């Protein structure tokens, strides 16, 4: 993760009410939590599996819990957080749908980001007969961590089928900007999607 705050993380912080309780799944070196603690006075914990990231979080004074998101959130009580956040990790999970359901059980609201596999660069690569190498998805098909990629349309369908309410959505290009082309044809031009979800009712 970069030293300065990624623009998508800055955008997420605008979605977070001051003073809330946050669980950040796959928190990396804790950059988002550090930013939120400073700007939003949140109390938060990160979940992280990687040794170096755990050590980095501790070095930065971030509350980090070493655990594998794929092992589930059974250790966390229902509605024990205001927000459960996961940035750019959904597509690397064994069962993203189940993790999302768990996030919605543990948090009042869920914020999730993922790369859009419907982007035109991906489609062009597939038309050419190959798995895509794009700026947003640079890895090879055989060594990528991304095992469950989806398009905006797929994610919307999952939310519909699971009856999850989309509270907010931000669609960005890889420079984390929004633009006219994304508004006209989101599933073709959005590279990174941010969703805020909750259970209905």
């Amino acid at each position, binding site marked *: 993760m970069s030293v300065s705050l990624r623009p998508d993380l800055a955008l997420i912080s605008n979605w977070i009410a001051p003073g809330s*309780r946050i669980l950040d799944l796959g928190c990396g070196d804790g950059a988002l939590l550090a930013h939120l603690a400073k700007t939003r006075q949140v*109390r938060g*914990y990160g979940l992280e599996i990687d*040794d170096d990231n*755990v*050590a980095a*979080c*501790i*070095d930065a*004074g*971030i*509350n*980090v*819990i*070493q*655990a594998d998101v794929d092992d589930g959130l059974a*250790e*966390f*009580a229902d509605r*024990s957080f205001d927000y459960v956040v996961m940035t750019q990790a959904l597509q690397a999970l064994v069962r993203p749908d189940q993790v999302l359901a768990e996030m919605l059980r543990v948090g009042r609201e869920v914020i999730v980001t993922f790369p859009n596999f419907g982007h035109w660069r991906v489609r062009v690569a597939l038309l050419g007969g190959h798995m895509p190498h794009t700026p947003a998805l640079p890895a090879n098909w055989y060594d990528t961590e991304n095992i469950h990629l989806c398009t905006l349309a797929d994610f919307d369908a999952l939310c519909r089928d699971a009856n999850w309410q989309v509270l907010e959505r931000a669609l960005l290009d890889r420079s984390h900007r929004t633009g006219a082309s994304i508004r006209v044809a989101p599933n073709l031009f959005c590279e990174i999607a941010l969703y805020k979800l909750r259970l209905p009712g």
Partner: protein
Amino acid sequence: MAVAADSVGVVTPRKVAIATPLLLACGRVLPGFELMVETYGVLNAARSNAVLICHALSGDHHAAGYHSADDRKPGWWDSAIGPGKPIDTTKFFVVCLNNLGGCRGSTGPTTINPETGALWGPDFPIVTVRDWVASQALLADHLGIDAWAAVIGGSLGGMQVMQWTIDCPNRVRHALVIAAAPRISAQNIAFNEIARQAILSDPDFHGGRYIEAGAKPERGLKLARMLGHITYLSDTAMRARFGRMLRDGDGQYNFNYDVEFEVESYLRHQGNSFVDRFDGNTYLLMTKALDYFDPAREYGDDLASAFRTATAKFLVVSFSVDWRFSPARSREIVNALIAAGRDVSYARIDSQLGHDDFLMPIPQYHAVLRNYLDRVAAEAGS
């Protein structure tokens, strides 16, 4: 002996006499007591850089350095305590003591009961983790330490750390709970019971008055320690270290009960060397303190409630192959702390040995300790 640059060098323990009466959990009162103490580093002017090390079942006050220039072995946690080590003695004033009821100089079964003039022996009260914390708090008063920058301990030591945060919330700024559990399981109590029975049923036990009888329950104590050592190692570690190796090179079975497999030799050695340095009555009461520890008990069995008044920030560490105090048990502590809204970080260290890993200089483990304690030191202004 050439002392390494990162060693605290030769250290001298001292006895601290506490004259304040101590009401114990069992209802008895100790009118006063003595604690054997070692310290490393210098207490700063603000008295804000003191760190307390709590020892485990068979530990003592000698956590780091050497007692003499020709000492072969350093203190039990020398890998972590010293100049430039994770518990950095150039930054912290480190205090370690032999707990009440111990057998290494503090008031306990092997010392004289002033009321009778005889050895305490089996009459020494069974002390609890809470009693230890109370006695350590009196020690802190004696040393002029209002609040510890950190209280640190592994295993039974980690339990003392938790108790500190519950009983003296304003006197602990950081709590490092390593390879511990919120209370021990039936399986764990069962191991302790076998260890106790080994000692109690030794013909040389003499109802605990073995010193007066000129005896020592060596066989029982040895068995207790052998059993303990099995539970401190993982199956994988034992396979890797001993496998089915035989001591005799000829590879033939001897068809007798002498030491034959390497693992037998290891256990017997551990048992024998323990007998030389430990006391049966102390072992009995230490295992009982372990069994009784259950801070949630007074809070409707809800550990989170117990931690709700704590103000310390926590670092909880577990080791992947530790089955005596498994990572799942550390997660229970972490979950309760999160539910109580406490600041907590948790590291699960990939390890090889088992419960004993908490004493090993595993790079990731020490990196986590160092990163955490560097912040504690900065906060303490040292």
